[in-house]
């Protein structure tokens, strides 16, 4: 029990630092890819500090509740994962937190927010099947939904479910709000609909949203690491290397691709999920018998 509490406390304290640094690295690397100097590494922290110091305008008072609920559910999701909880429960809690953000955007009645919320729901439609399939894939590969059991597996999950990893990396672009699929809101400043999901969220509320995004990024990278970690402790190093490579790959994709229409996102993500994860699951279930 104490081990779980220590893990949760460590996650709650360290995840925003790691997440913020990840975002800072992302911004510096993208700037270098465009031959710019780019912002300082700690820029995301400066941004959040500034947002906390700003006045908060509230369009609809229930918005505050939803944004804070989004933050709390995201932290809860990550804590559940890093404490070694149930994969399925993690993913259901994750959906819950996303729904809170969508509700926050809808509650403002702003046209841009509503449009962003609509698109966020579409994005959820794209990545939710894959996220569920990842949990099933881990179960098929190593026979458990519990993160604690999965990290003690005899073989790394990547050996049995490489297709799942490809599918998951594909939807990671949607989850990180990176360029081909940053439809609902973008971490870039400009977009065709102002800021989409976060248009009517300002000051402290926006700071909470940013912090929740950091937690979310760390959770997502944790799931990527799960594919590589098994009972051999050295595998943690491999997992970290893989996380760095895949994160930088996301930055590259962000800089290379233009934004697509929602139909292209829907079709491509479902096709990729079906081909990679679906086939993987099929083969696994046939061979496993």
């Amino acid at each position: 029990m104490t081990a779980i509490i220590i893990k949760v406390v460590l996650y709650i304290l360290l995840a925003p630092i790691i997440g913020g640094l990840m975002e800072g690295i992302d911004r510096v690397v993208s700037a270098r890819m465009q031959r710019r100097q780019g912002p300082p590494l700690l820029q995301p922290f400066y941004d959040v500090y500034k947002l906390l110091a700003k006045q908060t305008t509230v369009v609809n008072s229930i918005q505050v509740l939803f944004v804070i609920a989004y933050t709390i559910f995201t932290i809860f999701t990550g804590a559940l994962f890093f404490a070694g909880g149930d994969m399925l429960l993690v993913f259901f809690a994750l959906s819950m937190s996303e729904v809170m953000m969508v509700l926050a955007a809808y509650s403002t009645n702003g046209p841009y927010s509503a449009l962003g919320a609509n698109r966020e729901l579409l994005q959820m439609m794209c990545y939710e099947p894959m996220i569920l399939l990842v949990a099933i894939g881990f179960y098929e590969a190593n026979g458990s939904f519990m993160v604690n059991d999965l990290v003690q597996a005899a073989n790394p999950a990547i050996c049995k479910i490489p297709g799942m990893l490809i599918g998951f990396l594909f939807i990671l672009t949607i989850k990180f709000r990176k360029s081909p699929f940053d439809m609902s809101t973008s971490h870039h400043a400009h977009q065709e609909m102002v800021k989409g999901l976060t248009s009517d969220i300002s000051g402290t509320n926006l700071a909470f949203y940013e912090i929740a995004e950091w937690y979310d990024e760390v959770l997502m990278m944790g799931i990527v690491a799960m594919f590589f970690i098994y009972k051999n402790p050295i595998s943690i190093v491999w997992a970290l290397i893989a996380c760095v490579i895949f994160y930088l790959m996301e930055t590259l994709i962000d800089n290379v691709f233009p934004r697509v229409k929602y139909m292209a996102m829907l079709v491509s993500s479902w096709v990729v999920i079906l081909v990679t994860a679906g086939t993987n699951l099929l083969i696994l279930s046939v061979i496993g018998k």
Partner: protein
Amino acid sequence: MKISKSPWVLHYDGSSCNGCDIEVLATMTPLYDVERFGIINTGNPKHADILLLTGGINAQTAPVVRQLYNQMPDPKVVIACGICSCDGGIFKECYNILGGSDKVVPVDVYVPGCAVRPEALIDGVVKALAILEEKRVKVKESMKQGYCTVDYSKIAVRMKAEDYDPATQYDAVLTEEALREQAEAKIAQTAKPAPKPAAPAAAANPAPAATATAAPKKDEGGNA
């Protein structure tokens, strides 16, 4: 840590010839790269700290500029970039031009030039950052005095149909002083009935506010 390390800019074209706008965008390019100061060109007034205005203000853009200014959360600064935005420039005598940006909103930094050089613009923004820091201290002080930093005056659901007057809704410029007056008037309204000697003072309080600035009074009536 200073809040001026991450100024987010909102750029609005009053009625510019687009010369200054091109230069504003030029500052975002790899050559000048203002992101190294943490500056982001955001399109959203609710996220912005600095309002960057180009071009003179005409009758059509005046309400838009006022609304953008009002939507920005405190602390905020306004930069007029280009000579047209400073005082009207060569369009000053035009029948439809009201003048520079300061005819509509309080301007903190004037950056002249036709078109404004990107270097001058960056210099102006850096000057504005010092003002932003000063305003931050002011906001902190008013927090200490008990003013809430959460601005509920813009809550949409509490507006009634009769509050909404399309002709006058954007006439008010909600500067810090105007907002403070509003807050004081609200506090005076909601305060418990004071003992007899204080009553004339309480009655006298809203009157100067009403005469000093006619515009905020309208808005105050709308929100009450």
